[in-house]
């Protein structure tokens, strides 16, 4: 199933190229597709309506550039608008000029507050801050134990009074302690609460009043659907939060809630939590989120991960080679080995543009056994063959197959796929998105499934 928005737009706007300019009819058709894509991504219905209205104005009359087809032109505009909406003048964490900086964490049950507290603690400790955590969740069984354990792992002190004390009092006491012990930061963990639970929202307001936090952060689960708006609005009113921490971004939820929250409350998303390990915590990148929401994958994160493995010189060489189409099977072997070092391929595959939408690639973990086979085939090739796979015919194929313990068909397939991949990578380097057919051929799969219908205009 090929959901890529740019493909759908391409199909919708196939005859615009000749006209050179997007008409209102074209733009309306494009807006339909975008609306559908955003709804699939869990962006709030009303936010989608407002957003597409603004977008339409920008798209009307937009020039269709030479190098991009109209669909891609529209995607480019959408991407820019989304990024702008979620980014802009982002507020950083505010720090106290004297005494401990107080950061209050709030959110629904199960959103990932406690884990986020520990991660934030570690993140701040990394930059040399002395951090303490306050355990104010006295309701959830073993919540205090959990914070004590993860707090320790994060290298932060944990202030707790068990579950018999009042959360507001615990918070106040923790602040006093943080001052006495001259901590740089105090992070206050609170119980998950429903925004419609007046009693608990009142408690949150009281904790806020007593501790006068420099930052109040709302923790939001990336898989939250349409409800995100209601939650955000209520918390904005009751707790006046300053920023958002998005959690569980290592899942495949498109994360439209991020857009909804920002659009409706104007508060920026400050941090992204991307896994259960404490290190999986980073500043929020609006451009990456925009791509993700549009189903365009998270190329940058993948590149970043890759950068950690490949050294600079190699990376530059590689780039040159790709651009000049001199990328060989030897290079591919090296790259593949690097990629395998990064971790289970199934997680990484999802980061490539469009791959997220390729269900068959996602469900079926890329067979590590198959990769072993590929490696064996390449190793059975001579350096000349690796550099110039075009010469691999007849007897060479047989020899390679025998040497690697594979069949001639498998050798053929590798050479063919490599060729296609090389073409694709060259395209990507020049800014084009690969077509679904190309992706399918590379994956060795194909075919599609009927798209979900959306009756409205």
């Amino acid at each position: 199933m090929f959901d890529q928005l740019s493909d759908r737009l391409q199909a919708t706007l196939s005859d615009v190229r000749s006209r050179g300019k997007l008409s209102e009819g074209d733009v309306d058709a494009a807006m339909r597709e975008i609306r559908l894509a955003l709804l699939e991504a869990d962006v709030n219905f009303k936010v989608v309506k407002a957003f597409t209205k603004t977008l339409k104005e920008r798209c009307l009359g937009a020039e269709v550039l030479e190098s991009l087809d109209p669909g891609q032109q529209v995607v480019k505009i959408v991407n820019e608008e989304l990024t702008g909406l979620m980014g802009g003048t982002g507020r950083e964490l505010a720090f106290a000029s004297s005494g401990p900086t107080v950061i209050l964490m709030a959110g629904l049950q199960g959103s990932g507050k406690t884990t986020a507290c520990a991660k934030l603690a570690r993140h701040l400790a990394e930059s040399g801050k002395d951090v303490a955590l306050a355990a104010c969740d006295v309701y959830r069984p073993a919540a205090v134990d959990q914070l004590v354990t993860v707090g320790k792992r994060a290298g932060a002190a944990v202030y707790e009074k068990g579950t018999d004390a009042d959360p507001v009092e615990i918070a106040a006491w923790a602040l006093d302690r943080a001052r006495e012990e001259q901590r740089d930061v105090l992070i206050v963990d609170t119980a998950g609460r429903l925004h419609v639970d007046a009693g608990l929202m009142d408690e949150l307001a009281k904790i806020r009043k007593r501790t006068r936090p420099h930052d109040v952060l709302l923790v939001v689960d990336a898989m939250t659907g349409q409800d995100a708006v209601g939650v955000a609005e209520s918390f904005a009113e009751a707790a006046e939060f300053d920023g958002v921490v998005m959690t569980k971004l290592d899942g495949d939820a498109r994360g439209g809630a991020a857009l909804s929250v920002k659009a409706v409350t104007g508060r920026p998303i400050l941090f992204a939590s991307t896994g259960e390990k404490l290190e999986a915590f980073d500043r929020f990148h609006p451009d990456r989120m925009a791509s993700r929401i549009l189903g365009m994958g998270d190329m940058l994160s993948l590149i970043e991960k890759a950068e950690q493995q490949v050294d600079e010189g190699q990376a530059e060489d590689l780039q040159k080679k790709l651009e000049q189409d001199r990328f060989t099977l030897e290079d591919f072997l090296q790259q593949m080995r690097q990629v395998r070092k990064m971790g289970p391929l199934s997680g990484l595959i999802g980061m490539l543009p469009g791959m997220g939408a390729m269900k068959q690639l996602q469900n079926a973990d890329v067979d590590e056994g198959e990769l072993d086979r590929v490696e064996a085939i390449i190793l059975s090739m001579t350096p000349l063959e690796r550099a110039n796979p075009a010469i691999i015919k007849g007897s060479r194929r047989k020899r390679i197959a025998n040497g690697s313990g594979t069949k001639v068909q498998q050798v053929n397939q590798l050479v063919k796929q490599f060729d296609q991949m090389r073409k694709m990578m060259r395209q990507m380097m020049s800014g084009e998105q690969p077509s679904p057919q190309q992706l399918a051929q590379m994956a060795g799969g194909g075919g599609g499934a009927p798209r979900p219908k959306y009756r409205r205009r």
Partner: protein
Amino acid sequence: MPTSWQEIFDLGARGSAAPEAEPESEERRRGVFSRLRESLSKSRQALTEEISASLFDRIDEETWERLEEALILADAGAPTTAEVVERLEREVEGGSVSADGEAVRQRLIEILAEVASGGRAPIDLSGEPAVLLMVGVNGTGKTTTIGKLAWHLSKEFGLSVVLAAADTYRAAAAEQLAEWAERAGAELIRSKEGGDPGAVAFDAVAAARARGADVVIVDTAGRLHTQGNLMDELSKVRRVIAKQMPDAPHETLISIDATTGQNGLRQAKVFSAAVEVDGVVLTKLDGTAKGGIVLAIANELGIPVKLIGTGESLEDLRPFDPADFARALLAE
């Protein structure tokens, strides 16, 4: 008649032997229904703005648009929404449903209830012991649900329950389940943190068999369905349980948070591929989220909702009733 506890549990041979659970009085049921409606209607302004009796006063183009909007806002998703609205529109235009407000509203409830009933079946507790496996993404309410379920089975049906703390990953997960075990009057089997989850499950089933316990409920660590190795681990836990008892686990439930958007469908799909999910527990319905994604899950995957969670206390668990659910979505 809405689904009762007796209907949602298939107790097998035990059914007749179990002490007669207090038949729910009409009053108590009404009380619970109104509490359900109340919790579903807390700040439900958004939905009632869209779907109120007055909306169906005049049946015109706008009606269908507003209905679509309301269902999308309830997280039903575009495909299921399109299906439901188109069907209703066809019936009204075709004349099989008269174009007056109340008739249309009633028919909508019927259609929604029908969709929500996809794959409907009771929870299989006929095994001796019956083994139930809880799975789901992090933070969806697995452990709390287990506590509530254990309490209901033990207090209302007089069954002996063993809980397996097979979440050996999360800090203080076993402690959390231990507290629920205490509240529910159930026995707890655990290992030290970092232990093998399969081993805990295995030991729990073995212990239950040795002691003649009625039900084993296995808690697992929350995991994202995108983590292949963790999904493999889950499959392994399932296989290990089957080693101890060939048909077990008899029932596998996935917890889905009512606030979840379209990703809920993916979750159900992927977890199902790893462990054959029999049903959904839709949690946190006491918030403002409608949990409409279960319509898509039932419709597209044939996996039914069997239980709903409506709060953090032991009593806040109900059998899922499709008609009540649909009605509460649309009620004033």
